[in-house]
């Protein structure tokens, strides 16, 4: 509004074009995000780099889940299972020091494999509602680790598979050195991979949710009958949302495999799926920013909470369980007191203020 009066005309025109084009606006956000990512990754140590890498994969999976649950109204408790599929695919590629594909190729293959599995599950899930879909995906989350145990010859059984992260490509190290004049460590490299994936995913998801596809998803969520009368194929919309969401989880799993460097069934317990749901609910269903905030809380809160637990005189093992306790309690409180989550509540308050003003 007042921007146009203060900035010179050509700039105002450019700004206008950017804010009117969804893709340009999202790309601009992503570019801004990339700058922040570079600044943060370069100014923190190896341990923090690794933490940011895990924030990235949690963020990717939470982003996919928030689109599915928030925009399409399907509740999936099986995203941990989809992450497992992506992670195991990646781990199978990175068994030797000479992987058959470059990293980007492996990420794509892992995403596609998960996408195919997600399509199969999604076709079944699209016919289900509310608690049924939750129960079916819950079964998926419990069932998938068992597959890794059953085929223990190829999938490593209880011990899991080690992931040999390939060497940092020279061109990548050169580019980073050119921009920041810093050497690239392995954990920083994985941090970059994770955050580049996250930015790419979020641009795609943001565009999807702003497009016709996203409007169709919302229509299906809000009123099935009305959507069907308007000519929307309910099944197709649901399956598509599920597939997109599962693919995100697969990509997240691929990044996770590289960041954790081991892929074992215990990493993909029911807790992981529920934790992702916590991130999404906490941030606000349907909001990508909320998913990112949720992922940040999941990554950084445990340390704080465990520290508090230590000070309160709990043992290591007990203190480690405080973090899930806090997640669970916040999830219950959010649903009871502020069902729109952090981002949704702030937005709501903002809107009310604007209306009353």
């Amino acid at each position: 509004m007042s921007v146009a009066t203060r900035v010179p005309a050509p700039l105002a025109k450019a700004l206008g074009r950017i804010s009117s084009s969804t893709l340009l606006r999202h790309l601009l956000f992503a570019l801004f995000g990339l700058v922040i990512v570079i600044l943060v990754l370069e100014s923190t140590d190896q341990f923090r780099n690794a933490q940011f890498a895990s924030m990235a994969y949690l963020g990717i999976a939470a982003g996919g889940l928030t689109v599915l649950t928030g925009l399409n109204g399907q509740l999936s408790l099986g995203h941990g299972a989809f992450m497992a599929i992506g992670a195991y695919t990646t781990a199978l590629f990175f068994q030797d020091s000479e992987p058959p594909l470059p990293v980007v190729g492996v990420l794509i293959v892992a995403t596609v494999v998960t996408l195919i599995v997600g399509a199969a599950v999604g076709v079944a899930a699209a016919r289900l509602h509310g608690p049924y879909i939750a129960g079916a995906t819950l079964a998926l989350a419990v069932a998938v680790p068992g597959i890794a145990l059953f085929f223990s010859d190829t999938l490593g059984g209880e011990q899991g598979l080690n992931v040999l992260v390939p060497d940092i490509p020279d061109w990548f190290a050169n580019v980073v050195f050119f921009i920041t004049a810093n050497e690239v460590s392995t954990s920083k490299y994985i941090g970059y991979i994770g955050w580049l994936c996250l930015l790419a995913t979020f641009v795609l998801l943001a565009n999807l949710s702003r497009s016709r596809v996203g409007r169709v998803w919302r229509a299906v969520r809000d009123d099935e009958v009305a959507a069907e009368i308007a000519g929307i194929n309910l099944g197709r919309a649901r399956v598509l949302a599920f597939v997109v969401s599962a693919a995100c989880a697969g990509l997240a799993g691929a990044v996770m495999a590289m960041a954790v460097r081991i892929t074992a069934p215990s990493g993909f317990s029911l807790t992981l799926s529920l934790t992702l749901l916590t991130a999404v609910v906490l941030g606000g269903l349907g909001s990508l920013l909320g998913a990112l905030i949720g992922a940040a809380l999941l990554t950084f809160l445990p340390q704080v909470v465990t520290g508090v637990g230590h000070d309160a005189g709990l043992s290591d093992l007990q203190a480690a369980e405080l973090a899930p306790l806090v997640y669970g309690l916040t999830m219950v409180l959010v649903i009871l007191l502020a069902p729109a989550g952090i981002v949704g509540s702030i937005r709501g308050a903002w809107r009310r203020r604007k209306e009353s003003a």
Partner: protein
Amino acid sequence: MQQFLTTALTGLTLGMVYAAFALALVLIWRSTRIVNFAQAPMAMITTYVALALIDAGFSYWIGFAAALLSGLVLGAVIERVVIRPVEGKAHINAVILTLGLFIVIHALAAVIFGSRYRSFPAPFGLQGFQAGDVTIALTGFGIFTIVSVLVVMLLLVALFRYTDLGLMMRASAFNQEVARLLGVKVSRMLTLGWALAALVGSLSGLLIAGGSLVHPSYMDSVVVYGFVAAVLGGLDSPAGAVVGGFLLGVSLSFVSGYVGSELVALASLVILMLVLLLRPGGLFSHAAERRV
């Protein structure tokens, strides 16, 4: 032959436990239209209550009774405090809420009782008996399991069929508005329904734990099996849940015995999918009603 018999008998015992758990889910679904995924950790933590009492030197039966009683109280408290505000609101909120409770109770148990594996005693023998050359794998505890689940079911049937209280509970599950007009205190009935369901859930937790190991997530897969069993029976019918639990227990036992125990959860997923795609109303539905 030996393996077949053993597998079938194990399946029978397990099936009864799944039936009890499915019954707990169905009781809550009928009264409040919520699938209580938190049933698993609720049963788990009451089993820990029993274990704590038994470790403190009390007899198994005192622990058993205390677990059932704490299940009853826990169910009532959770319905009153947490579930009441979302009753009648969007489905998704209630489901997310029970999952939040799932995490909370899980973490609480780990903080209070520790997350290591602990063995849980059984009041009866865990050995099968010998008939000629064949070992019959029906243990004393297995018989106790079957009998106790049957007793609880009969008590529930008696409650719902032959008492005024049961009639009022059925009325409030059937139509809250009308029940309220007829003077039924519906909200009390809902609380009672949750309490009874939690009691039945606790029973299944105790029966799974008996003679085996407990840790905070030992019930996690049972909630899946219980849900599948309930869906097999149509999610709405207590009798269907019992039959579904029995069928599921036997089939999963055969998967475990002849294919591999790691794939049991996957088999339950396949069964669930088949049921939902072919007979969404459960195995015993007559009318083609779309509710799923």
